[in-house]
């Protein structure tokens, strides 16, 4: 932060644990009738879209993450997950590169 090294919060032990978490989030999102509606417009699938998933509503408890964002594309008859990232929670930090060439990173929020 501002030129100094900073220890980032760590929620998952390794990549496998992260992967298991993401699989669980996607699976439970699709099982949830409210979130499932956000995949469609009056029955037709959305093409490129993102949704914000409240982990509490899915019954998932992870210390430090409250909301996860998922972005999908509908390709060849299937929803494909393009990316996923945590949006809210005590372990979710936002960084902004202020002036790309001079100032370095600062912490936000």
């Amino acid at each position, binding site marked *: 932060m501002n030129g100094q090294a900073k220890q980032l919060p760590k929620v998952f032990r390794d990549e496998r644990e992260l992967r298991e978490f993401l699989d669980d989030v996607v699976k439970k999102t699709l099982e949830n009738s409210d979130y499932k509606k956000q995949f469609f417009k009056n029955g037709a699938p*959305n*093409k*490129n879209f993102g*949704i914000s998933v409240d982990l509490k509503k899915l019954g998932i408890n992870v210390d430090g993450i409250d909301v996860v964002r998922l972005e999908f594309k509908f390709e060849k008859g299937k929803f494909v997950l393009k990316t996923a990232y945590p949006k809210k929670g005590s372990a979710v930090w*936002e960084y902004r590169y202020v002036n790309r060439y001079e100032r370095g990173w600062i912490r936000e929020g």
Partner: protein
Amino acid sequence: MWVTLKGKRLTVKIDLERYINTPYPFFLIFMIDEHLLLGACWEGEFEGANADVYGFFESLLTACYYFLQPEHPHVQKITKFDRENAERDGFELRDEVVVYQTTLVAEAAGTYYFCSTRNLTRIYYENDFLKFTDCPEYKGKHKGVVELSLKEFIEDVLKISREYLEKYAPVIEKIRLEHGEESDDYDFLQKFYREVEELYKKKFGSES
């Protein structure tokens, strides 16, 4: 090179020169009047947020599509659910009959609730990129609500979406394909645009 799509109140700017190989490859700025809903302001200059342009326009058209069918069961269910989500996100909604949450398919950029009453559109937004702006005119303006008439909003979305589809979608698609992306389904978006236009004509046809 920035290109600008401009309605009466809505402005969208897209940078066709920079491409980042992520699900949000383009830099995009979205404004309604002077409200900066998507994008940042640093040292007196606007900067775009990373976004998927197709998804951005699909989201705007979806908002119109829902606003024009407030009685549809799907829209009512989405509204009920997203009203709860809006409250969780700290927005105080009012008498809106349609509530639609979208990420605008932009990277971690903010939270948006597109809402409508019978005659109005209200967009509740929190633009995360603007939170730590150093432009004095935007300090503390990252969270807010912007209101315009329903007709005005839909007309602007139709106008800028048409311009995007006709003029810039082919250019953007070419850039995407050059970077090895799969082609996007523009037939779908064209069809969806016409569907929203039909609904608009049905509702406002006699007045315009």
